């Protein structure tokens, strides 16, 4: 009658197995680079500060992967769709001449309805392309970026901060210096042992994580998760699987829009034209490094993966510059790591 407890013996081997070989390698690689950087007298607190900032600024973009993966539509390679909605929100806030927190939150508010509409359309398309979501998503991302290049060049924005001084259209990068540059980063920020802690940024990032976590405890969230895990099961329980997939993609798109605004305020610029092109791949690589697969992802994967990925990028640039004076070495290593990880994850597809 009683529940039969089967005591599980803790074993190191088992623990390492759940952590995963790729993560072990990457953690070791990161630690090695840290040690090397110290021996090269690169200031370590500076590296850690940069890592924390980049962790927070990229985090929400990586978080955008989660709803899509959970809903069963795979990695959200359509991230540029969300990014573009966020950028439009950001531009509108500048056009209305808003500054500070008002500008930042107004940008988010403007972008959310856009992202919801775009996300619905994107989800609708995913439902018609079951089985090849990720391939098609990649090309949707590429196409939308190119399409928007035309839009940026024709957009009727008047603000002199954004438009080219001569002719029409928007600049390639738009400075946020007089708007909401580092508004989250500097909120309640402080230094400890020479490490800069971007408190506001981290609070915002973790807040978004909690929001997503909360969503997955709601009725809809649970149905969405079940639809991704086993569509036939959900269907047998009377859940509209296709609607759930659309909701997942809307959620991902909204997070993508918010994510780019967080990224931009930290970066100090809104980047238009082809800048969003590869952001989807970087975010995908981050969550995969964190231990997610194309079928399963959690907040922990986001936190861990973004930290490892960004930590690697931050440290590899100065180290590479000191070791070899090849200008593009850091960029090369970043491409190798990110694409290598994506390739690894896709190869695991059939393995689970």
């Amino acid at each position, binding site marked *: 009658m009683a529940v039969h407890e089967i005591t599980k013996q803790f074993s190191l081997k088992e623990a390492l197995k759940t952590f995963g070989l790729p993560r072990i390698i990457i953690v070791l690689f990161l630690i090695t680079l840290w040690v090397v950087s110290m021996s090269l007298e690169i200031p370590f607190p500076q590296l850690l500060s940069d890592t924390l900032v980049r962790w927070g600024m990229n985090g929400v973009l990586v978080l955008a992967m989660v709803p899509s993966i959970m809903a069963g539509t795979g990695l959200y390679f359509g991230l540029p769709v969300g990014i573009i909605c966020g950028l439009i929100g950001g531009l509108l806030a500048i056009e209305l001449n808003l500054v500070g927190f008002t500008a930042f939150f107004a940008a988010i508010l403007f972008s959310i309805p856009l992202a919801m509409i775009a996300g619905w359309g994107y989800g609708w398309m995913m439902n018609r392309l079951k089985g090849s979501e990720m391939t098609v998503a990649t090309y949707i991302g590429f196409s939308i970026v190119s399409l928007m290049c035309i839009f940026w060049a024709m957009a009727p924005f008047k603000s002199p901060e954004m438009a080219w001084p001569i002719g029409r259209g928007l600049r390639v990068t738009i400075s946020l210096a007089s708007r909401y540059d580092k508004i989250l980063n500097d909120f309640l920020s402080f230094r400890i042992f020479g490490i800069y802690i971007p408190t506001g940024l981290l609070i915002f990032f973790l807040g978004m994580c909690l929001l997503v976590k909360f969503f997955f*405890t709601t*009725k809809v969230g649970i*149905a969405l998760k079940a639809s991704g*895990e086993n569509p036939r*099961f959900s269907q*047998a329980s009377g859940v509209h699987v296709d609607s759930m997939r659309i909701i997942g993609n809307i959620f991902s798109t909204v997070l993508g829009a918010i994510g780019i605004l967080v990224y931009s305020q930290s970066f100090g610029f809104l980047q238009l034209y082809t800048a969003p092109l590869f952001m989807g791949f970087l975010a995908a690589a981050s969550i995969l490094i964190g231990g997610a697969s194309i079928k399963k992802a959690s907040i922990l994967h986001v936190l861990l993966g973004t930290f490892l990925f960004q930590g690697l990028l931050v440290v590899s640039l100065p180290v590479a510059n000191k070791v070899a004076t090849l200008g593009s070495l850091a960029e090369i290593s970043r491409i190798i790591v990110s694409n290598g990880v994506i390739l690894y994850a896709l190869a695991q597809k059939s393995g689970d």
Partner: protein
Amino acid sequence: MQSSEYVLQMDGIGKEYHGNRVLSGVDLHLKPGEIHGIVGENGAGKSTLMNILFGMSVIQSTGGHEGVVKIDGKPSSIHSPVDAMNLGIGMVHQEFMLIPGFSITENIKLNREQTKPNLVSRVFGKDMRTLDRVAMGKDARQALDTLDMNIDQWVTIAGLPVGHMQFIEIAREIDKTNLKVLVFDEPTAVLTESEAVNLLKAMKDIAKRGIAILFITHRLQEIIDVCDRITVLRDGKMVAVKEQKETSIHQLAELMIGNKVGEVMRSKKKDVCTEPVILSIKNLKVAMSGEEVKNVSLEVHRGEIIGIGGLAGQGKLGIANGIMGLHPASGEVIYEGESFKLNDTIHALERGMAFVSEDRRSVGLLLDSSIEQNIAFTAMQRQEKYLRTIAFLKQANKKEIRSLAQQMIKDLDIRCTGPTQMTRRLSGGNQQKVCIARALCLNPKLLFVSEPTRGIDVGAKKLVLQTLVRLSEDLGMTIVMTSSELAELISVCDRIAIVTEGKIAGILKPTDSQVEFGLMMAGAKDGST
């Protein structure tokens, strides 16, 4: 060279899959020119026996088999289908293995093409030779003529009627010059009556040429019509070998089913027909591949346990799946006196039906979610149970779900490490209990249970069946139980409907004789009452 009376001798054949015995001590002896029938229920071991004969990789990769296979008196080791082919064993497949875009001749000669040398082949070897189409066509013609088929040998396969495809498969086999034994695995299942008659005639012709035929079918009438001798398998054992003259359909049916009085689980069965009808099905058709329901009419009475039995592939599983809206269905269904919408799972669940699927792993469970999530899911989504409202959001109520899961674990005796264990890690029987628990959360008035004991061990089987009986007796739940295991239907159900070829062949009482069940399942006309 040693000669032998038998062309094929299989002695003492046995097989275990991961400690699960499926075949033991089977002897099969085949004379040249003999038609030998093999009959048995699903799971009696027929396919395993054939897999051994053909050296299929499922056998090899699970540690081989026991016993000896002798061809022409010589012990032979068959490790792959290619070995079997070289030894002169051929097979006519149930699913046609033909390439639709190729002509009949090309299909017959596939991979055995006659070739002529040419300039290129002299340099690059045999693979570059030209096909000798004339010789190939001649051979194909000859094979087709043997089967009385006056169809052009250069027509492409695509678009030919099913019956023709079957014959082309046969032509391909008899075209092999060394053919000694030809296996027919359920060849008539997809054929019309007249095509089946032709096929049986062709089999006799082939046998006259000295080729031994192994004939596997559920249709006892066909067995009696063409076979010289018949081997009956039951539960992996050889029950009897009979000469055709000495036996009858009745006897075969009885041998096949055996004395299947399972453990009686219920003291008294109800006389259900006096109870009101809760579910009335008329002319139900369900498009479920492999389990198509062609035309089923059935009445289910309140409070009964009605069993749906029959052999695999006859359509018994399609009935529950169709009513629950999981596969496209049409027909007229009346539930509790009101009309019932088909093809609408939500409607079915809201009207108080619940379903435990036969496909536990791909429909019944979220394998990577916890036991408690699995149990509460449907009730949460469809009946708004186990939720609490925060602002305007409905959130899962962890506490309620946890206590529900603990209650179910206790009630159904689910062996686990706790309510948060992933269902993937549970044994088949405990997974099944989780599926049942999920259905019970809905407080259904009508419960469909399909193959409740498939793939679970004996002890767990009994517990699952006892649970069903308890639901019926304590809660008055109406249960429609679909199962391939006749014994368990007999031990639990009030009435048993037998489905053959997508239709209800008849409804029997658990007390009816084994022969009657056997005849009805085998589709013998005189079996219906």
